[in-house]
């Protein structure tokens, strides 16, 4: 029981997370108990990537539905984490493995390989990657920048595809 007390969430922390992510008080406490139940080593971080609770909440904040922002419109503050632009940025970072703000052919291949496993040959996967880059690339550098990424996805309903309904 002693170790649990030291990892309990303090009220100031909850307020900070609330401002940063837009989750409600009860949602944050519920997600915190989920985080602690996943954190088997009880050292405040989740496994290999050493994600702490703040990082965990920041990532989850990207998946909040956009309509929820209507209630707390803060025009002067920073853009909320779940805005369309930030959601797209999150998805871009999933592809951009070395974080150089470009999705190269290799990176695209790696991600594709993760998604299809062993079911598609290297050549076929390579041609899929080439086609995707060709369609998106506008400045001819054989890589996809963030602006090109946004252009490709301009017709996609990002809000719906990348939102999770958090209860209460």
């Amino acid at each position, binding site marked *: *029981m002693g170790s649990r007390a030291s990892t309990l969430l303090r009220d100031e922390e909850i307020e900070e997370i609330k401002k940063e992510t837009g989750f409600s008080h*009860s*949602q944050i*406490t*519920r*997600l915190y*108990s*989920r985080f602690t*139940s*996943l954190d*088997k080593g009880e050292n405040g971080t989740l496994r290999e990537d050493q994600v702490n609770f703040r990082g965990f909440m920041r*990532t*989850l904040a990207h*998946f909040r539905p956009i309509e929820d922002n209507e209630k707390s419109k803060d025009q002067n503050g920073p853009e909320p984490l779940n805005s369309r632009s930030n959601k797209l940025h*999150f*998805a871009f970072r*999933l*592809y951009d493995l070395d974080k150089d703000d470009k999705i190269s052919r290799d990176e695209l291949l790696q*991600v*594709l390989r993760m*998604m*299809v*496993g*062993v*079911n*598609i040959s290297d050549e*076929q996967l390579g041609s*899929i990657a080439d086609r*995707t880059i060709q369609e*998106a690339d506008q400045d001819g550098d054989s890589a*996809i920048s963030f602006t090109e*990424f946004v252009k*490709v*996805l301009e017709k*996609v309903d*990002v809000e719906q*595809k*990348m*939102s*999770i*309904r*958090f*209860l*209460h």
Partner: protein
Amino acid sequence: MEGLLMIAAQVMSVWFTLAFTLIVLPSVFGLSLGISEFYMRILVKTLEWATIRIQKGVKKKQAMALKNSASSGIIQRDETTMEKEIAGLRRVDFELSDVFYFSKKGIEAIVEDEVTQRFSSEELVSWNLLTRTNVNFQYISLRLTVVWVLGVVVRYCLLLPLRAALAAIGIVSMIVGTTLVGKLPNSRFKDWLSELVHLTCSRILVRALSGTITYHNKENRPQKGGICVANHTSPIDVLILTNDGCYAMVGQAHGGLMGLIQRSTVKACPHVWFDRSEMKDRHLVLKRLKEHVADQNKLPILIFPEGTCINNTSVMMFKKGSFEIGGTIYPVAIKYDPQFGDAFWNSSKYDIVSYLLRIMTSWAIVCNVWYMPPMIREEGEDAVQFANRVKSAIAHRGGLTELPWDGGLKRAKVKDTFKEEQQKNYSKMIVGNGPTGNLSMGAESD
């Protein structure tokens, strides 16, 4: 110093005499003096009072939130399949937006899944005056706190010593009793005596936990030559069942105190204990169990097919091994009432000793046991289907949800085959199913 020892010895003897007359003797005859019923009535009244105080003290909005959080989940999952979400009406191909589907599903699973929550104690709707369940509830009033302090004193200073003494008596008499019975030659008298000893010790141990058990449908009680199958929540399950009948246990031979108990009981009554090396040999295990069941004079075997302790809100996959033995299966559903004490053993969090301490400092162990009509494997039904059928019946009877997942997920990771299946599905979608590029995957996807 000597005077102190004298006093201590006198207190101990009074204690033990009381315990003997009030609890041990009635256990031999299966009678009850009504003491525990009286205790339970007071307990129920106190907890009801506490619940009302809490409801009055907490603001209405917070109370609603509490009710919601205990029953519903954190998120509402989007149940659209991969086919609909990605393929939809488009032609066969990969698109950059596909990553949205996977990341969303991944995050949904991280935030809430069906299985992880089954390996932690059930959340209560209203506080039951135990510190360990005080997760969502905050300070309400002075009176409640006083009652809580009183509760702590009663539980730790009065109940715990009493229960520990009873447990000691129970275990010692089990070992001594079965060893003595074991010395007799095999006969009907020996069997009768062995049953008496087992039952008495079980009853003492159940009272050591302040167990209040209600048995339903006793006419369906497991018969000799059968196999009794139940859902597993804790090692206490064994006591709960042996309190009302005699079974042949099946399990791995341990060392230490447990091993001592195993060795002495097997002399009186043919339990089936396996060495660690024998356990790995599935055929050997199956053969021995088949031999036991074939002998109609032998007591019914007790097996927990889930293989591990689950938190009593759901029933997980029943391993097919128990259902390949043949013979009649007698399903039993056990449901604990978490309000009086949490019986679930979270073996990754607590070892057996701290678990027993927690049990002995709870208010009581209250549970319902339903004996269900016997089931046998039907024509054309394989062991897995039979196992699932029995599992459904038990889940339905006990009011537990049914999950197809393996209880082994408590410690092991999910098998790679699940991931590979998803990868295969997705590949078909972006490459097509051959020259026709047909998109109707429905029939094949599982």
